[in-house]
């Protein structure tokens, strides 16, 4: 138990460090010292403005990181497949299709959130309904349903964006996930969806623990594997939709963070969910900081950077996993 607490404190410290870095560093050079000055209200007003402008993107990074990582852990637990990630659910394609539709046919611009949210949820639920129709465990069916729905929606997005260049121009700003240029209003619009997903995830941990022993053991222990799987999937749809709507599509966090989190968490699903929720935002924020510094004064979008930052961590986790197995 004390070892668990130590790991928890370390993970929290890493997350706090990432948040601090996200506030301190950017294309306009400031330092940790400036952050402390702002926090104690003794800073130069200009510096304060620069630093305060980084609050929303840091908050968004935390939210998206928590959501994507927890969604990935749920997906891998529910499917018992270490390669599962929230992208399998069709959420990204659904959100993209909704946004493209809103720009091309409804004359909307900006405020992608209000389109991405229902679009992602609908696509996710559609995949879930197709994938679970006919009963049975059907992980393969679910993955296929996700692939089909994603393929059709992606084809639709490509058809529209390639034939309407104006739509493409607005859409391409959204299609690579980024934390910058968004305000707290985006955060508040997705927050209810994210909180619902997180609450659901929080009560599913022990059910996932039984599911990890196989379908029959789970049922014999008195759990309800079908219900656990359905609710886990629903929570993953809610979480990845909230993240995608808030910051755009970000790959890799949902796939890599569950593996990294397993390192401190071990085999208990409840601990895996908890550590994912700490490691996910830390990784996303660090990727964002790197993206801001590497091409300063311009920025590299976080959706591009996550893979570069996450890959070494995932490789380390996988190497360690092999050694332990």
């Amino acid at each position, binding site marked *: 138990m004390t070892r668990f607490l130590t790991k928890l404190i370390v993970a929290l410290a890493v997350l706090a460090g990432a948040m601090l870095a996200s506030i301190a560093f950017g294309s306009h050079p400031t330092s940790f010292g400036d952050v402390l000055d702002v926090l104690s209200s003794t800073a130069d007003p200009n510096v304060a403005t620069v630093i305060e402008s980084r609050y929303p993107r840091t908050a968004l990074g935390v939210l998206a990181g928590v959501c994507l990582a927890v969604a990935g852990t749920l997906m891998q637990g529910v499917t*018992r497949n270490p390669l599962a990630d929230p992208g399998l659910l069709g959420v990204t394609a659904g959100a993209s299709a909704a946004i493209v539709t809103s720009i091309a046919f409804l004359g909307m611009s900006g405020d992608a959130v209000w389109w991405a949210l229902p679009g992602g949820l609908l696509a996710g639920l559609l995949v879930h309904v197709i994938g679970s129709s006919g009963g049975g465990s059907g992980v393969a069916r679910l993955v296929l349903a996700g692939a089909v729905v994603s393929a059709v929606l992606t084809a639709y997005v490509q058809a529209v964006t390639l034939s309407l260049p104006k739509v493409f121009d607005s859409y391409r700003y959204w299609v690579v996930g980024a934390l910058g240029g968004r305000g707290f209003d985006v955060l508040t619009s997705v927050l209810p969806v994210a909180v619902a997903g997180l609450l659901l995830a929080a*009560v599913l*941990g*022990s059910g996932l*623990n*039984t599911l*990890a*022993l*196989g379908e*029959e*053991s789970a*049922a*014999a*222990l*008195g*759990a*309800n594997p079908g219900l656990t799987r359905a609710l886990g999937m629903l929570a993953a749809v809610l979480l990845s939709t909230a993240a995608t709507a808030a910051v755009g599509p970000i790959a890799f966090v949902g796939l890599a963070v569950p593996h990294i989190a*397993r390192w401190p968490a*071990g*085999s*208990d699903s*409840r601990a895996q969910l908890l550590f994912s929720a700490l490691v996910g935002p830390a990784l996303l924020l660090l990727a964002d900081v790197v993206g801001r510094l590497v091409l300063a004064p311009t920025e590299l979008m976080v959706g591009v950077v996550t893979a570069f930052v996450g890959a070494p961590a995932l490789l380390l986790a996988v190497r360690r*996993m092999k050694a*332990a*197995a």
Partner: protein
Amino acid sequence: MKIATRNLTISYGGAPVVGDLTLDIPEGEFTMIIGPNGCGKSTLVKALGRVLKPDSGTVELDGRDLWSYRGREAARKVALLPQNPVAPEGITVSGLVRRGRYPHHTLLRQWSRDDEGAIAAALERTGLSELADAQAGQLSGGQRQRAWIAMVLAQQTGLLLLDEPTTFLDISHQYELLELCRDLHDEGRTIVAVLHDLNQAARFATHLIVMNGGTVVAQGPPSRIVTTELVRDVFGLACDVLPDPRTATPMVVPHAGRVATAP
């Protein structure tokens, strides 16, 4: 702890695998279920363990429909070790055994005061106390199967259901496991095991249930029901049945193979 089936039918959407079966599992016995592949023995055990829902008919636990119990409530009375349980990656032996405590927890209280005691007792009982912190993936076949037995023991049920518990073990570990089951029965548990080996079943079972074509064709003490005719009718195998020279239980000696000639 009384478990029974009443007109139980299970079909997996096709022809019934278990058809209209009414059966009482005798309390306090070490029951073994044998029969040819596809006879419905695993299906029956899964229905008794609340893993498969009947298409019609009921499984009754202490006179009440098993499916009228809440899942965890039933799992505090009946434990089932399936044929192919999965050990989560990186789990320790004691972590695995701890999963058996799930039925004793609630959504809001995911531990109970008795957890540590039940886990330690289950490890002790299966001879795994020394290996409590070992990775389950690194155990030998025999040790791993004992770890799974420890997990269902941690459930602290009066009734244990084991679906082919010896299948992947080499022969010495098969007997080690059967002796463990016998000892667990001697301590007062009702045990039901699906087994493939007739001679092992006849040696260890106190009550034998023979299934064929989704129904029970014979049951009773092995010494009374294992006969040349039964083996021929159920398994289609010509054989002699002799008293086992060591245990005096029925021993099946198939006719297949060349008869020895005197040197």
